[in-house]
Each structure stands twice: as structure tokens, then as C-alpha cells.
């Protein structure tokens, strides 16, 4: 996994709550194993009914073409567990999502891919959103995971909290599977114990065969 230390980019305000993964990464009719994740991001929201680009959608506005930080509302990433909803962010170089809160599975998928999910305190979030709206893409913000600060135009740095373990994992770009496989002996001994105490959990037999 790619590590995350700091990311500088234009911050785009998409200030609705409950944006779901069907919106972020819609299932499109023509698809294949090699998907165009860059084009997938908010594919429908970006377009009008006739298929042309909707100039009013925030990511289509000239100043937000190169957005690096998405700023949004409560419960971002609700719904389907599809990881394409994070891959499509990465494909567009959006490495940070600042939300009022995240859906559980979406947040986990972010951590798995080196995308930083940031939740500010309610007061700081109000201030940050106002600054993002005021600067309107004219200057970038920087989100630094080392110092746990957001800096940029319109005011002083804003600190944010993140669980120490999540921070380390992102900073070091840790290989999640490798981390777990250090415990393979414990896994195997659990299996032996379960095979004794609840053997039906450790076997799957079709009784008709």
C-alpha cells in the first residue's frame, strides 16, 4: 500500500450528507475487469441527462479540476462495500476526504488504500468548510498526517485526531496481510483448538456426498 505523509491540493466542497458509494462509483452498464476508475468517480453526478458534462457539479468547475481534497458532510461512503469508491478517488489523486463522519466500511477501505479519512471537531469543521468555500479553489490546502494539521488560506492551522494505529498504518504504508501473517502461529493454534472444541466450525462437508 502506498504510504501517506502529507498531501497538498485544492479542496472541493461537496457539502451534502449521506453520499453513498453508488453515487461515488456507480455500476455502469458497460464494464470489464480493467475499469476506468478515473472516469468512474461521480460518473452520473458529473453529467446531465443528455450525457454532457454538468458545469454546475463541483468537480467539473475549472478551479476544482485538480481537486486533491474532498470536503463533505456526514456519513460519507454509506451503502455498498465496493472498494471502487476509494479507488476512483485515488485515480483522481484525491488522497484526503474531510467529512463530518464516515460509514464504517468506507473508512476501512480508505485505510486499506492510503487515503486519509479526516474528521474534524464540529466547530473546526464549520470553520474549515467556511474557509474552503471562501477560497473557492484559488489556493490549495495541505493535510499533514505527521503533525496532524490542516493548513491553508483563510486562517490558522487546524489540528485533527486520528487513532494512533490508523496513523501509523498510513504513514508507513504497512502491508496489512504481512502484519497479520506475523500471527500465523496463533491462527493455526486457534484452528487446532476450535477443531477440538467446536469441530463443525473447522470443516465443511456436504453430507450428501
Amino acid at each position, binding site marked *: 500500500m502506498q504510504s501517506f505523509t502529507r498531501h497538498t491540493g485544492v479542496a472541493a466542497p461537496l457539502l*451534502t*450528507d*449521506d453520499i*453513498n458509494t*453508488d*453515487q461515488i462509483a*456507480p*455500476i455502469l*452498464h458497460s*464494464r*470489464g*475487469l480493467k475499469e476506468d476508475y478515473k472516469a468512474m468517480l461521480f460518473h*452520473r453526478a458529473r453529467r446531465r*441527462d443528455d450525457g454532457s458534462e454538468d458545469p454546475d457539479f463541483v468537480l467539473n468547475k475549472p478551479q476544482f479540476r485538480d481537486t486533491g481534497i474532498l470536503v463533505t458532510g*456526514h*456519513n460519507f461512503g*454509506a*451503502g*455498498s*462495500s*465496493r*472498494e471502487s469508491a*476509494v479507488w476512483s478517488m485515488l485515480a483522481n489523486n484525491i488522497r484526503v476526504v474531510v467529512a463530518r*463522519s464516515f*460509514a*464504517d*466500511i468506507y473508512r*476501512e*477501505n480508505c485505510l*486499506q*488504500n492510503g487515503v486519509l479519512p479526516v474528521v474534524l471537531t464540529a466547530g473546526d469543521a464549520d470553520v474549515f468548510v467556511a474557509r474552503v468555500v471562501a477560497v473557492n479553489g484559488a489556493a490549495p490546502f495541505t493535510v499533514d498526517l505527521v503533525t496532524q494539521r490542516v493548513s491553508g488560506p483563510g486562517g490558522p492551522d487546524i489540528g485533527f485526531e486520528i*487513532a*494512533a*494505529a490508523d496513523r*501509523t*498504518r498510513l504513514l508507513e504504508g*504497512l502491508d*496489512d*496481510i504481512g*502484519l*497479520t*501473517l*506475523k*500471527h*500465523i502461529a*496463533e*491462527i493455526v493454534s*486457534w*484452528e487446532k483448538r476450535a477443531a477440538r472444541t*467446536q*469441530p*463443525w*466450525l*473447522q*470443516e*465443511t*462437508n*456436504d*453430507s*450428501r456426498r
Partner: protein
Amino acid sequence: MPRSLFDKIWDFHCVGQRSDGRDLIYIDRHVLHELHAHHAFARLEKERRELHRPDLTFAVQDHTVATKPGRDDGTNPSGTAFIQAMRDGCRKNGVRLFDIDDPEQGISHVVAPELGIVLPGATHAVPDSHASTVGGVGALAFGCGASELTHILATQVMALKRPKRMRVRLDGRLGAHVSAKDVALRLIAELGVAGARGFAVEYAGSAVGAMPIEQRMTLCNLNIEMGGRSGFVAPDEATFAWLAGRPYVPQGEMWDRALAVWRTLTSDDDAAFDSDAALDCSDLEPQITWGTDPSQVVGISGRVPEPAAVDRGRRAAAESAFAYMGLTPGTPLAGLPIDRVFIGSCTNSRLPDLQVAAAVVRGRHVAHGVVAMVVPGSSSVKREAEAAGLDRVFRDAGFFWGESGCSMCAGGNGDRGEPGERCVSTTNRNFENRQGPKVRTHLASPATAAATAIAGRIADVRQLLAGAA
């Protein structure tokens, strides 16, 4: 110390703690589907990793398979590559696959319990947010993404942060033609789409105890629609009777041993919960969504709410839903003309769901101009329904009777509505564009969906059956 059922299952399955503080939770049963499996197989191959326990891993073709009779890999061209990639990965890695033509193929969340692959007190993972459907038999399930799926294949554990515990008590006797779907929709309306975020939810209470297992699965299926990753019902004698004799459950003496353990799978009397919620279901009428998230719900006799009646924080979402759904505040839901009805999905496609719908439809005909579909949740459900003659009931009434799969729930197989159509659906998400671009989805129970198909308008099944329609 008294423990909740969640604590008992979690603690039993906790293999150890990782250096980052996450618990390693052993996954007893892992079920893949073709939409995400290829990512995992490709990554394992690239990283030269092996499956730790292929024998505890199953795969089902469900998301992209066509529902057309006589279907094959190519019937839905956008699914072909996914179907074949999973087949290939399963063959190389020794995973039991329920392929597109397998007599037991179906939606993973329907197939796993009906074959007895998932068991009470077992942990279960699927790369799909509706994994907790199997909470209906007392399993603890986790929906996950593609990276976590790969992680489970390589290690057979998930690295998780312990969720908080919530208990939802559902009491009272459900009225006629009111089902778990109506209860769940009401609950989501009360608690909100993020009401269970961060929690593992135990559903308890007399209304849950009285629910047949299939309805408990419907209830647990919708847990994610209020933000909860895991939701379950403590197994009881009804659960054990339901499971007995299914192909993959333990047999003979092993069944008796398992049963002795399963009978201990309850929350202790004084177990602590981090959150408690309750709903009295006695006076509940059939429920239906009016908006574009599953919390925007009213009773079937209700109206699209006035903005002033909506919580301030939810008003913008309501306004946007009015526009998308083409509805004005104050409009009664019952009587709204519809174009399409879909009965199916992991939420409501098990045999009793189809029996309920067929009882409404029998001897009647789908209204002129309405497209109505029934898609059984598994090929086994389809076969059993056909043996009982339900396919004839539906076909005679003008329904399409399809092969099993996820179908119009997310439209991943090409089954979808036309722009602007209003659709009453027994699925789980009424999100914008989910059932096709610009399709307006109303979520409801199989009984309500069936009555609506007959009336051509959103209908109160109780009135239809009383002859009022």
C-alpha cells in the same frame, strides 16, 4: 461478568491482537461473489500468496448473472469477464464454486444459510454490505471490501476494531400482512441511516422471537441501511429446527454436540449494551419509502412529508428527494401510479417471500402497462417454488419469472428500469440511479409489491385483499 452474545462470539473467535491494536477475528465461513473476487485472486497471484483455508471458502455467481431463462456466461455481456475470472480463480485455488449453472446457485446471502454453510455462533464474511443477512440464523457477519477479502483469503482472519454493542428490542404482535420488512423500514426511519454505525446490533424481543427464520434474515439484511456492519438474532429452537438436515450442517452425533453449544448462544441477563433501542410493532402498518434513502419512510396510509415536518438537518436531503422522485409534499403514497415492480434480492427472495406475494397475486392480473418481475433468491428457491406451482401463479398473472441472482437490486446484470419509471421494489436501497438511471424506487415488502403490481398504483395490500381495490 455477564456477557452479550456479541461478546461471546467475538471473544471465542479472537485469535490474538495485532501490534496496531486490532483484534484478529477468525472467519469460519467466507463467501465470495464474482464482482469482487477477481481483484483478490489477481492480487494473491501477484503477491505469490496462497489461500489459507480454501475448504472454508465458497464462491457464488450472483451479482452479474442474467435472469433470462437459458442464460449462460454471455447472456449479460458486461458480466462475462467477471463470471469467468471467478471460475478460473476458484479452480486454481480449490474453492467450491456455485457456478451459473449449478442447481444450488443463487445470491450468496440466500445460498449460505439455506445450505447450512453458515451456522449459529459462526463468523462469516462476504465482500458485500448485506453480509449480515445470515445474522438471522445467529451468525456474526461482516461485509467487507476487496482488500479485506484478499486479507481473509490469505489469513482466514479479519483485523477489526471491536464495535460497540447495541440491542434493539422489537415487541408486539405484527398485524396481518405486516412483515419484517415493514419493521426494518420503520426502525431505519426512527434511528436514521447512520443510527447503528459503529455498533454490532442484536435484535431481540417478542416480535423477533415470533418471526420465522426467513424474516429474521430480512431484518438483519437491512441492518447496514442504518449503518451497522453486523446484526444478528440469538439462535433459538426455531433456528435449530430450520437448520436441521440442511446439507452442510453437522450430522448425527456432531449435530447434538453443536446443539449443546448453540443453546448457550444468548446474551446473559445482565449483559451490558452500549446502546438500547426499542420499537413496539403492534400497530405497525405496511411501510414504504418515499425518498432516496431507506430512512425516508412512511406508513402505507401516509403522505410525502411536508418539509417543515422533516428534521432540519435532513431537510435538504428531503428537498432533493422530492425532486428526484417527482413528488410533492403532502401527496398520499397509496394511489401513486407505478411502472414497474420487482420482487427479489437478498432482502426478500426466499420461499416464504414468494409465497406471500403469490397469495396476493393468485387469480389476479398485473395492471396494464406495468412490468412486473419475480427473481428467486436461489436456484433452490426457484425449484421449490416451481414444485409448489408458484411460477404458474406469477406467470399467469403476467409476471416475468426469472433465473436466480441479484438482478434489479443494483442492476449489475443489466436488469434495470427505464429513466423516469416509478418502481416498487422489495430490495434494500432506494438510492438515486441504483435501479437504472433516473429510476424512482420505493422500497416495500413482497406483499405490498405484489398488491401494487395488481393495482398499477401503490396499494395497501390489506385493502386489496379485502376487496376494496
